[in-house]
């Protein structure tokens, strides 16, 4: 799949300011995420990375100043994996509440295999490990045709090989004309340009 490279940015934020409990998390933050770009949001714990991502994704709709425009509803992966313990990985993906697409079962199995869950497709998820449950969620990245990804700490509980595979997937997605916005404490080891946003104390927005 490939996306139209031209046109308006997928995601634009203008002059975002957020105050929580009398503390300025960020102010005057602007960014434009265009197709073909990989963005990393950096900042210490409590700096407001997750708050920023929720605003950008459209989950937080008040309490901040500024304007956000989105060309599409993003594919958002948050702290919670939205994986139901009572459902199998296959069911979790097929009946996912994001309702993005009707996937063929072969595609789902293929995506699950690519996140290392081959053979686990129909086990109930509560019998999987925490890392494997995260991987169920990450399988969406191999299925979705959503151009805009907003990922909050996607590497949590993922092993080295998994992290490398995921970063390779980011590069692939960006090369296809998609855009990725990711928070992580890790340094991304990717062979493409990484745009950075820093939030929190000492931020030079």
């Amino acid at each position, binding site marked *: 799949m490939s996306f139209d490279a031209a046109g308006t940015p997928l995601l634009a934020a203008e002059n975002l300011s957020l105050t929580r409990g009398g503390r300025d998390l960020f102010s005057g933050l602007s960014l434009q995420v265009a197709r073909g770009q990989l963005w990393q949001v950096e900042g210490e714990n409590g700096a407001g990375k997750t708050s920023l991502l929720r605003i950008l994704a459209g*989950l*937080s*709709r008040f309490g901040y100043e500024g304007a956000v425009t989105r060309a599409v509803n993003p594919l958002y992966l948050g702290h919670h994996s*939205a994986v*139901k313990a*009572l459902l199998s990985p296959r*069911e979790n993906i097929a009946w996912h*509440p994001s309702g993005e697409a009707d996937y063929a079962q072969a595609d789902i199995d293929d995506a699950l295999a690519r996140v290392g869950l081959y053979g686990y497709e129909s086990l109930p998820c509560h019998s999987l490990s925490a890392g494997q449950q995260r991987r169920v969620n990450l399988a969406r990245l191999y299925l979705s045709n959503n151009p805009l990804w907003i990922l909050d700490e996607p590497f949590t509980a993922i092993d080295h090989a998994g992290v490398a595979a995921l970063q390779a997937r980011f590069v692939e997605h960006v090369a296809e004309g998609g855009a990725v916005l990711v928070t992580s404490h890790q340094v991304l080891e990717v062979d493409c340009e990484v745009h950075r946003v820093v939030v929190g104390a000492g931020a030079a927005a």
Partner: protein
Amino acid sequence: MNAPGTAGFFLRLLRRQLVLALRRPIEIINPLLFFAIVMALFPLGLGPAPDTLAAFAPGVLWIIALLACLLTSESVFRGDFEDGSLEQLLLSPQPLYFSALTYSTAHWLTTGLLLALVSPVFALMLNLPASAIPALAASLFLGTGILSLIGCIGAALTVGLKRGGMLISLLVLPLYVPVLIFGSAAVRGAVEGIPVAPYLAILGAMLSLGIALAPLAVAAGLRISLDA
């Protein structure tokens, strides 16, 4: 790989909710057990005289059904809120109105409908005349639908709160009043031999109004709860 049609998505979501409920059957059985146990308390409190029980039965059965709906509605969104599924639902390209309606429908199928189906047994135990039993089942069938819709509003508004349990009763019970009035009146009407169709028609009208408006409030409530 296009986005599924609206109807397709909601059938899928409904299937997901029902499969989840069926894989933890105790959640489905709990309201029925609650119904049975509370029903058993009334003869103990009011005395076993068949006439007394029969006189109170329409109201008692309706109030227990109402409480069973109330207690279960608190958890409609709880699990999906905690594991992040609701976030995904909000970001979905599908209209949230129908998603909210789907959650209410799933709740009704797993509580209200079952309560309506088992209510004849309990009605007989409380000496409700057999002639009133169809009216009881029918009024519960329609009325619990409204209760599910209203309960979902309360659940959506309180799902983000740690201590939502008591609060949801305060929010929802006043709104249950008309349903209780017409539901129990239908049963009492049947006991007295009055035609019950008008009562059921009013319940049906309230249900239609609820289907039209309640999902709007549920959707707004979910957006607020996930934002907080």
